[in-house]
């Protein structure tokens, strides 16, 4: 397996795009061949990532040391390298990404939204997979930027071509647009706006590193070393952090930059929403953990209260917005704003507990909200509406579907014993005791407001369940035959359900990977006395 040490990650990242090229050569009407190829490719990428886990040395997870590392010259003139690697923080996210991709391919087996065209859709999915996997393993800022941006193209087309075709009035325009057109361009422009500034931030780091260390570099590992040694401070750090903040915060999304999200999620086809929620949103919060925090620790600490406040506003705002929705999918979309608020709250505490909470929150949100979007899509497929006022009694019409929906909603509201609990709970715990020197007043207020947020989350989730699942079916559905969950849906969903339960009962499956890396990250950034004891929570 020597060669796998060097090639493992490259295979995980680029296999999907090779598959996309292969699909290009298969005839458009040969649907079976297209689907099988895509499935084999995504399974192979997943298998590669599992082999990476198998070969990963969990004992040696000191921060800023990476495994399966490759570093080759890429653009020599600017010292940008093809530098990739994984550590305990990126590993769970990488596996999540390849895993959800397999399920998405399985689910799409017999769920083609108009105008069908499986070939194009699968090609886009596979390109998307390369972008997502690549972002999680990139250790060079330019490479990271490229992967971060590659994700936009396929998602733009997914939303724009297969998205929601209902008309939508846009404020300020007399013309009525189709929702998909409005949502796709809005998604793209928001992200592009953020990432243009993010790139300026990266470039500033590049030049500054030349002044500080003698050699200009985009290398995240080297920049982290410089950053934790206190090389980047003052106005420079403030501007750079601000520029990168724009890029990442749009992607997360943090209030008030979130407005693209409800539109994009609601308009996207089912698989698109799943991938958006499960993985794309994590690219932003991952960027905070991987780049902003370790490279600019002091600046991150001074931005922390501000981030915490925005996160809490996001939590409360997201929950309240959910309570005002009539469209089931839009409700789930807004719930992401709230859940990612918890993730960002965890990061903003700058403690190992908080960052661990953020990572498990990201994984859990990926699984749970991914599943919720699958369910919303399948229900829309059957009812041809997502208006909750017209749904009701779902559990009587489709017992299995209704049951899974109830389960997932419980997971989403943070029921102890299921995956969603850990992220929320630990984020709140960490906010009680943030990094030394951060304002206790702000963070404890944030904790209280966040706790209120969990109550609101429970409120809207139960409210949704009540409206959709319980009660009597509406008269208009009388005489309709509803086909309950089919085998493709089952195959795609059961693994998610199992994982939600496993992580709920045994979060160490994630923490074992992350804890060492996170603890040493905090040590490195803020000194070892900053690390609170995490063992009391994880039992490790």
């Amino acid at each position, binding site marked *: 397996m020597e060669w796998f040490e060097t090639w493992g990650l490259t295979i995980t990242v680029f296999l999907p795009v090779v598959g996309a090229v292969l699909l290009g050569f298969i005839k458009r009407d040969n649907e079976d061949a297209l689907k099988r190829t895509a499935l084999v490719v995504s399974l192979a990428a997943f298998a590669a990532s599992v082999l990476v886990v198998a070969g990963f040395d969990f004992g040696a997870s000191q921060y800023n040391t990476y495994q399966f590392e490759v570093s080759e010259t890429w653009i020599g003139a600017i010292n940008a390298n093809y530098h990739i690697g994984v550590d305990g923080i990126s590993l769970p996210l990488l596996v999540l990404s390849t895993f959800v991709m397999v399920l998405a391919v399985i689910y799409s087996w017999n769920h083609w939204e108009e*105008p069908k065209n499986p070939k194009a859709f699968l090609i886009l999915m596979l390109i998307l997979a390369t972008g997502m996997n690549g972002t999680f393993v990139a250790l060079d800022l330019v490479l990271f930027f490229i992967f971060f941006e590659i994700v*936009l193209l396929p998602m733009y087309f997914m939303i724009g071509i297969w998205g929601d075709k209902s008309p939508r009035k846009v404020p300020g325009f007399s013309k009525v647009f189709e929702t998909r057109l409005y949502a796709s361009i809005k998604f793209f*422009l928001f992200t592009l706006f953020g990432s243009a500034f993010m790139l300026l931030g990266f470039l500033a780091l590049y030049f500054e590193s030349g002044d500080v260390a003698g050699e200009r570099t985009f290398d995240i590992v080297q920049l982290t070393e410089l950053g934790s040694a206190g090389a980047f401070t003052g106005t420079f750090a403030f501007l750079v952090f601000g520029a990168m903040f724009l890029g990442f915060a749009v992607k997360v999304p943090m209030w008030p930059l979130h407005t693209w999200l409800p539109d994009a999620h609601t308009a996207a086809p089912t698989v698109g929403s799943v991938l958006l929620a499960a993985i794309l949103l994590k690219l932003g919060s991952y960027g905070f953990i991987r780049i902003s925090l370790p490279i600019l620790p002091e600046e991150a600490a001074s931005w922390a209260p501000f981030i915490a406040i925005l996160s809490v506003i996001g939590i409360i705002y997201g929950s309240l917005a959910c309570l005002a929705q009539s469209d089931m999918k839009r409700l789930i979309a807004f719930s992401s704003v709230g859940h990612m608020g918890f993730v960002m709250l965890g990061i903003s505490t700058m403690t190992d507990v908080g960052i661990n909470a953020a990572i498990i929150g990201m994984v859990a949100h990926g699984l749970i909200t991914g599943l919720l979007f699958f369910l919303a899509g399948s229900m829309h497929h059957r009812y041809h509406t997502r208006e909750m006022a017209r749904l009701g009694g779902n559990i009587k019409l489709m017992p299995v579907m209704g049951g899974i929906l109830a389960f997932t909603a419980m997971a989403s509201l943070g029921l102890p014993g299921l995956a969603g609990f850990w992220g929320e709970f630990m984020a709140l715990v960490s906010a009680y005791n943030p990094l030394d020197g951060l304002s206790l007043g702000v963070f404890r207020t944030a904790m209280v407001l966040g706790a209120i947020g969990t109550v609101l989350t429970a409120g809207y989730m139960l409210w949704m369940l009540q409206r959709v699942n319980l009660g009597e079916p509406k008269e208009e559905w009388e005489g309709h035959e509803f086909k309950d969950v089919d085998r493709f849906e089952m195959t795609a969903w059961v693994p998610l359900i199992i994982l939600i339960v496993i992580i709920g009962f045994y979060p160490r499956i994630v923490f074992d990977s992350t804890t060492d890396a996170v603890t040493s990250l905090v040590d490195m950034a803020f000194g070892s006395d900053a690390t609170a004891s995490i063992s009391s929570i994880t039992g490790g």
Partner: protein
Amino acid sequence: MTPEIDYLALAPEIVIVVTLLGALTLDLFLPRPQKYWIATLAVAGTALALIPLGILAINGETISMFDGSYVVDEFALVLKGLFLISAYIVFLMSVNFIESDRYYQGEYYFLLLASLLGSLVMASSRDLIILFIGLELVTGPLYLLAGWRKGDVKSNEASMKYFILGVLSTAILLYGMSLLFGLTGEVTFAGIAEATQGMSEPALTMAILFMIVGFGFKISAVPFHFWAPDTYEGAPTPITAYLSVNSKAAGFVAMLIVMYQALPGQSDVWAPALWLLAALSMTIGNLSALRQTNIVRLLAYSSIAQAGFMLVPFAAAAVAGADLESAFGATLIYLVIYAVMNLGAFAVVIAGARKTGTGEIDGWAGLGKVDPILGVLTATFFFSLAGIPPLAGWFAKFEMFRSVMIADPATISLAVIAAINAVIAFYYYAKVIKAVWLDDAVDTFTDEADQPPAGALRLALGVSVALTIAIGIYPSIAAFVRDAAQVLASGG
């Protein structure tokens, strides 16, 4: 005294001269159905000229002739390569386009080759006179070519507007140059640079500003851009492609060499002017492009905006008083990448217009479903123009941003303007992609819609798409351009 002439160094120019004379002669003798031989000759001649260029590049010597007025160095070679390859692609685009018009094929290729010759001369010029001759040789034939479809009112308008404004700008440029000569008594760049060092003279300021106005017209920078959209729309599409790539690049390089080599000591005067041109071109070009419904006009405004982006590194570095060498490299890289992707975009316009029978963007709705390959190419070139990775355009934008990261309020503000403009630009590029892929098909497709584009056009598309993707994934391919800029910096 007879000047020493190195024939190998002049070989690319000589090959083009022979080719253009050959085209003219062939035209006299060939019967109409066989006129396509002229096109073949033009394509072959252009390709042939690349061979001596390659030999010169491998030799890597700097050859200086006519007392340093005509220099063949790495910088000149890179530019000549750019001009030749883009002219080659334009010829490929022209073959079927011109053939279908059925008149004056010989003259068409003759004029285009003459213009190409001008750009080759310009690339080597190191004094004002040769520079001016080269530049005018580039534009002169284009006045005629813009009006090629003489039955079309728009084409007449295109030619007329271009001619009148072009001549005006030439006069202004020449006036500036003559002032410069009067003040210094020198025509070579090196001589002028020496004479103007530390000179503070209102007439000199005037000379510089006149020249910037003159060049501004050539590169259609705002506020000297008014001719461009109308001319672009009316001219035959291959000529528009040539105007927006070769002729713009020629003007661009001419302006930058003059500022960089002849007037380095006067950057207080020209740097703010370029800063303003860059900011205005990006902003006005982009905002105007947002409202376009015709794809060629859209590309016209896009090329105005792109010229603004290209000026950014140079203007920023000059304003901040920083190292011009790396800024010049960034501008050159931008120019090369822009040439590749913009030519591709125009090739797509030709193929698409043939299929849809219209240049209106709305008329292109659903093209991606009818012809997926053309649809993918459209998306590739337009996303590349927007600077989305992993297509070549990202590296151009990246280099631009990289060179403006200088801690100076004037450059930071230019960087922010550029960043916002990059986002605005995406919107209108996406408009074309939206029509092709997202909109439902309308029924405007022509009978030819099922047929693939002609062979030559396919080759043009293939060359540009291969370069666009290759440079995007492995930008080191384009990095040699920077070395070329360094050669110029070292005073070669």
